[in-house]
């Protein structure tokens, strides 16, 4: 108190708790990203599409395992309508594609449109931290989508196995690294491209449409070029079948290349080329996204 002014204690209590600084800001941004894509802490309407897609990804595996439990004559290995772990990635891959088309724009575009990047910048969060957290959120969600039904199938198959649960778990343990590897491949194939397009597009609707357009139309055009012409070098058009590369690598991982329907297979490429394309696109997308956000924030 001075003779010119006084401040009264109105009961304000300053925060004395832990200050988590940069790590806390990164963790919060990461967690917020996951909440946002699933519509958690948001209106019910925001939850419909993401949770419907989750159900769509998990339901076939759940129903199948359920049937197998109920029907003793049902053999998982022999009677599975969608083959084994490798083939199930085709189902989850399609659903995850739609989910990433939804989630990628949701993670990046609203913050730019609503002008809140400055708020992130005013926290102990670098542009790399911000974009890294958002990318981690997306990769986590994609991995979850891919892994949960696979885990369900793995445990379900083991529980139904005639050799006993734990035996079956050990016998099929060689599937685990394959499942993990395929999950990483799909995540790297889908997520960085979605973030790249979401960095450039100003509207969520446009980003969703462009992402799916690049994947579907691009793959369709590549397939048309590869199959229908013998112009020298046309087989290299297969490299543009962005949506197809993870399927081809998955076939390689699970030893299904002999029956692979991937465009790259038809063009006579080896699976490692697809892996290289996936890695290349992921790296290039990441570099561009980081560069762009360093300029924006």
């Amino acid at each position, binding site marked *: 108190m001075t003779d010119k002014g006084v401040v009264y204690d109105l009961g304000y209590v300053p925060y004395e708790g832990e200050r988590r600084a940069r790590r806390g800001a990164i963790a919060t941004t990461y967690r917020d990203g996951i909440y946002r894509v699933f519509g958690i802490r948001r209106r019910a309407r925001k939850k419909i599409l993401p949770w419907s897609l989750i159900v769509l990804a998990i339901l076939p595996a759940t129903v199948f395992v359920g049937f197998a439990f109920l029907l003793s004559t049902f053999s998982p290995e022999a009677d599975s309508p969608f083959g084994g772990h490798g083939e199930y990635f085709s189902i989850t891959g399609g659903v995850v594609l739609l989910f990433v088309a939804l989630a990628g724009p949701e993670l990046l575009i609203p913050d730019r449109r609503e002008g809140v990047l400055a708020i992130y910048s005013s926290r102990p969060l670098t542009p790399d931290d911000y974009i890294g957290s958002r990318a981690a959120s997306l990769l986590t969600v994609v991995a979850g989508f891919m892994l949960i039904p696979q885990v369900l199938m793995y445990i379900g198959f083991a529980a139904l196995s005639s050799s006993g649960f734990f035996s079956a778990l050990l016998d099929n343990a060689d599937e685990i690294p394959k499942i993990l590897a395929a999950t990483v491949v799909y995540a790297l194939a889908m997520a960085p491209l979605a973030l790249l397009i979401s960095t450039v597009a100003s509207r969520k*609707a446009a980003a969703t449409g462009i992402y799916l357009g690049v994947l579907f139309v691009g793959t369709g055009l590549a397939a048309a070029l590869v199959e229908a012409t013998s112009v020298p070098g046309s087989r290299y058009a297969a490299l543009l079948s962005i949506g197809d590369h993870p399927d081809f690598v998955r076939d390689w991982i699970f030893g299904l290349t002999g029956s692979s329907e991937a465009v790259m297979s038809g063009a006579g490429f080896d699976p490692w080329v697809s892996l290289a394309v996936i890695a290349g696109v992921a790296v290039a997308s990441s570099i561009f996204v980081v560069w762009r956000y360093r300029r924006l924030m």
Partner: protein
Amino acid sequence: MRAAWAITSTTVKQLLGVRRMIVFGLAELAPAGVFLLMTQTLAQEAALDRFLGMVAALYFPLLVPIVTLIVAASALGDERRDGTLSFLVLRPIPRSVIALSKFGGAVIVAAGLNVFGAVALTVVYGIESGSWSLVVPLAVGGAFASIVYASLFVPLGFFTDRAVLAGLAFVFIFENAVVSALSGLSSLSPWRIGLSAFAGLAPGGVKAELAEFGAANLSSFGASLFWTVLIAVLSIGATTMVLRRRDLA
């Protein structure tokens, strides 16, 4: 009339910025470019076969829906989400005129782009085959499909910012999977309405050839026209009702 034209032209300007025009333009030219490469080594008889393959497997089921959905979902929905809807509705203009003008703007852009793609593809075919009889049919078919998709997704875009994703799920799951299996539902498939219009106007034999690409049970041109007009009228009516009855802020 002046107000309707002002809304339509402003909508077209909003929906078709320079960046979008380049991206969409390139996307629309892609099938023509691929077909041009394909025709370098094809026999002329095979050209029609490949052309119809591009039309039935790429142009109608993928390109037209994706382009139209992005455009249509933004036409009215972005006004609402950006907070500029009050600027439009607080004018001495009937709500039906606003709905019609917004729809018109979306159709002009979407159909314009898709017709551009159709013309490019058929011009390449025409240069290769010497036959120009498919230019108008494919342009009309593309326009019809654009109108039907716009009819569905202008109002849907008003309600949700996920209209594009919902629309694409509709296209990939319902139209491309379910209707392929249950061909009796083909009149509920916007792109098949467009494909029917194309087949109906194209010279004889095209319809039969299209069946080889999974496009069986196509209706007549008259039926396509009927469905297109009906769905458009219902859509404009529904949008008008929404603008009249719903709270707009």
